[in-house]
């Protein structure tokens, strides 16, 4: 082999080497100069970890600034995400020390599947002090586990006002679409005021950014944004009255609404049977959820705003106002009640077999004469009855600041044709006149009606929020009066109806069980026959709706008890107790069920 040949090959190699260097140089220029910002960003992303800091929700105060909902820290066990792939082994080890809810962990893992790697997986929410000390003592054995403290709801008045306050929970899959700006582990209001005023209560989460290494270990803090605590609600609710009302309802199925008619502020709103909110903290156990949701008495339903009941004789108030405003009746005009009327070939009876004889409006309301109102209703016709129900706000939601409110039904021929595919008969008008048949209303709607009556025709929005305190402690009152409406019905007609309602309680009427010495309680009872299913007799629903005192009313009370009996016998005594309590008078210790009234 000749030396020159070899040298020639070496020289060729030299050219190749120079060429490769040029290529490398270009490649580095491309990455380091042209794509610098792209890689710069990736490099920052690598080392930065942002952890959200959760803002505590605002607290909730009653009208006297008593705390009814606040926050307490609960300790939770969580698995650091970098140990995700070892979770089964870690769980097995810890399970020897404390128990776990596998269901909860699986859901949690599903929920956090797509999230950044440093967000921990919750293993157990709300560990006890004993569990904490067990884990703390073996901290060295469990480098995969961290204990985090987070604020959860605490209810000083346990079990009281649960429906009104509502519960909180973590974002569900469906919620995540609505609250798409929220961290998936955020807590939101699910029902009641917690839901309705969620945006006020929630506050704003902050974050801390850390520098981390490739294993997710925190090296140092980079920066932070402090969280903003949520605003605190001040309610119109009086927690002691609420507590009293709930005691009165114990053992019954039904609802009570207590409203201050001067502004529409709700003093108490109770539904029975109830539940305790502490079941939901730190989270609802599956078995508790099952027993709550499968309970035939439906404790989760807020009957005060979701319960739909025929108003019965309470609706006679609407008839009376309509008749007076339309000029169909004069207060002094008497109608003869023979105990029944015939419409077509159908007989409609008054509750009093022998009839009331000649009754004017006052006596008809006081004694709750059906025939008087049958006659009045026929004169008005279904359309005009509906018109006045509408004017009085009964064909719409009251606008109470709770998310679950349901709307009742005020039937008329159009409604019947549309929903029932049947025509309207005269008999439908007759039974509508005494608030039975297709008509259904919620207790809050009835309370709203009584409030309007107490205010001589000014419709006020029943509400729970008085105002809120911002983070600086400044109070922002809510002016609900801007939503007030005039019914347009003459004030004097309200005066007449109020006088009648006074008579119901104080002039030997059906509501005499609500009479209180020295206070002019006004009211109207209602007894709603329930269509019995099967052969067993089912007791009627008992209504009482009233206010006090007659002059410058301060309080509206609506009571409904499901399948309890007659309104005057069952609902009126409870209303009386509430009036007594409100006016600071001694309340009899046992319920007065021996009062004899008939309707």
């Amino acid at each position: 082999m000749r030396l020159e040949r070899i040298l020639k090959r070496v020289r060729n190699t030299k050219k190749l080497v120079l060429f490769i260097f040029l290529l490398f140089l270009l490649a580095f220029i491309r990455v380091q100069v042209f794509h610098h910002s792209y890689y710069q960003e990736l490099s920052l992303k690598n080392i930065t970890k942002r952890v959200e800091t959760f803002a505590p929700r605002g607290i909730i105060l009653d009208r006297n600034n008593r705390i009814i909902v606040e926050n307490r820290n609960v300790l939770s066990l969580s698995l650091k995400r970098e140990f995700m792939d070892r979770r089964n082994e870690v769980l097995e080890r810890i399970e020897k020390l404390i128990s776990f809810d596998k269901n909860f962990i699986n859901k949690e893992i599903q929920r956090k599947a797509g999230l950044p790697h440093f967000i921990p997986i919750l293993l157990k929410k709300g560990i006890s002090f004993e569990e904490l000390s067990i884990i703390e003592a073996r901290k060295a054995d469990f480098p995969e586990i961290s204990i985090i403290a987070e604020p959860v709801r605490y209810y000083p008045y346990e079990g009281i006002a649960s429906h009104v306050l509502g519960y909180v929970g973590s974002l569900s899959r469906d919620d995540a679409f609505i609250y798409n700006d929220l961290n998936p582990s955020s807590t939101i209001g699910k029902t009641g005021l917690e839901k309705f005023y969620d945006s006020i209560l929630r506050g704003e989460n902050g974050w801390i950014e850390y520098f981390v290494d490739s294993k997710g270990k925190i090296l140092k803090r980079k920066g932070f944004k402090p969280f903003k605590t949520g605003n605190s609600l001040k309610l119109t609710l009086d927690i002691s009255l609420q507590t009293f009302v709930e005691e009165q309802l114990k053992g019954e199925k039904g609802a009570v609404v207590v409203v201050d008619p001067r502004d529409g502020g709700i003093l108490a709103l109770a539904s029975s049977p109830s539940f305790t909110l502490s079941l939901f903290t730190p989270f609802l156990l599956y078995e508790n959820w099952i027993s709550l949701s499968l309970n035939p008495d439906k404790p989760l339903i807020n009957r005060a705003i979701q319960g739909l009941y025929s108003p019965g004789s309470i609706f006679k108030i609407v008839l009376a106002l309509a008749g007076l405003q339309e000029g169909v009746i004069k207060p002094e005009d008497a109608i003869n009640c023979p105990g029944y009327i015939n419409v077509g070939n159908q007989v409609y009876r008054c509750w009093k077999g022998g009839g009331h004889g000649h009754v004017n409006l006052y006596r008809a309301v006081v004694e709750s004469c059906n025939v008087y109102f049958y006659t009045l209703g026929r004169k008005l016709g279904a359309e005009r009855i509906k018109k006045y129900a509408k004017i009085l706000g009964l064909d719409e939601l009251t606008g109470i600041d709770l998310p679950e409110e349901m709307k009742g039904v005020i039937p008329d021929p159009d409604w019947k044709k549309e929903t029932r595919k049947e025509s309207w008969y005269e008999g439908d008008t007759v039974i509508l006149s005494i608030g039975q048949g297709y008509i259904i209303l919620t207790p809050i709607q009835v309370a709203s009606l009584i409030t309007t009556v107490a205010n001589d025709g000014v419709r006020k929005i029943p509400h729970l929020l008085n105002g809120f305190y911002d983070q600086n402690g400044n109070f922002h009152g809510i002016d609900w009066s801007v939503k007030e409406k005039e019914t347009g019905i003459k004030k004097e007609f309200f005066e007449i109806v109020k006088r009648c309602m006074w008579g119901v309680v104080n002039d030997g009427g059906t509501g005499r069980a609500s009479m209180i010495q020295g206070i002019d309680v006004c009211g109207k009872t209602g007894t709603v026959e329930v269509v019995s299913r099967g052969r067993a007799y089912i007791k009627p629903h008992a209504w009482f709706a009233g206010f006090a005192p007659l002059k410058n009313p301060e309080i509206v009370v609506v009571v409904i008890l499901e399948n309890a009996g007659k309104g005057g016998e069952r609902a009126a005594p409870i209303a009386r107790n509430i009036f007594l309590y409100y006016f600071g008078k001694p309340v009899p210790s046992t319920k007065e069920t021996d009062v004899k009234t008939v309707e």
Partner: protein
Amino acid sequence: MSKKLRELDFPLLFIVLVLTFTGILLIYSSSPGKELWKKQLIWGIFSIILLFLVLFLNIKSIIFYSPIFYILSIIPLFYLIFFGKKIAGSKSWIDFGYFSIQPSEFVKITTALFLSKIISNFKKDSLTFQNLFIISIITFIPIFLIFLQPDYGTALIFAFLLFASIFIGGIRISTVILLTVILLISGFFLWEYILKEYHKSRIIAIFFPEFDPEGGSYQPLQSKIAIGSGGLLGKGFLKGTQTKAGFLPASSTDFILASAGEEFGFLGIFLILSLYLLLFMRIFKIIEDIEDKGVLVFVFLTFSLIFFQFFLNVSMVLGFFPVIGIPLPFLSYGGSSLLSLYLGIGLILNGKIRGKIEK
């Protein structure tokens, strides 16, 4: 000896020393809290001693006795196959307690010596099949043994060494075609039966980097992030976050250039590349003056060894080549690699001094 010392190629020695020093600096920065740089410094001192010791011998005699060195250096490879302990997944190191030695690094030099003896004795200007067979056997023995360790990076360097030998020995087109067929067939068998899934995923990742971001292409991506985020001037000495926070894999060894790119930017990379260019150009210059065929072939093969490692490492760091475990000559941490490089450089320097045919 003083006359010989005057003929010592100081520029080459200087470049090598600067590279080594740069390496120690980069190791210091890329292995926070560890004392790797000190170890590398000690290895460096031993390497320099070795380099000067080699100058006392005559390179022509070394090439003459190269079969003996070749066989002696192969023995530890057999030892490793049977008695070696796996360190980081392969049986490449012999542990001596305070330090460990990677025998395959030295086999590179002995094989180059043996090949240069054989090639320089070939009669024709291009290789015959017989020639080709002989040099293939010489290289395939270490390739096979190293592949079993397994250390694919080093095995690959030997494959390149064979390629360089064929190139310098000269080859005809017909032989090239035949070799291509053989390569394709053996490549097929390699892919189907020998390469493991993770090797394949690495190779696939070169062509389809968007495939599986946390799998095979994680390391090249982190390497590019390190280099790219360095920008023009770098993040500054000891300030590379990719390196410090552990996102860059093997930041003191295989990916040390990425670490340099992050902290010193394109400027640093340019300077380092320039040093290598100077190194290679200097070796080319030395080759021009060599008259002895054996020495010439040896210097060329040693150059090839260093250049291939450089070329594959830089390609790997840039994400052009799968992550296969090839250190960057002189810069990457590793005692055996440094010793063997200095041995090679020492022999090149020796070749410069004694490469002339004495008249």
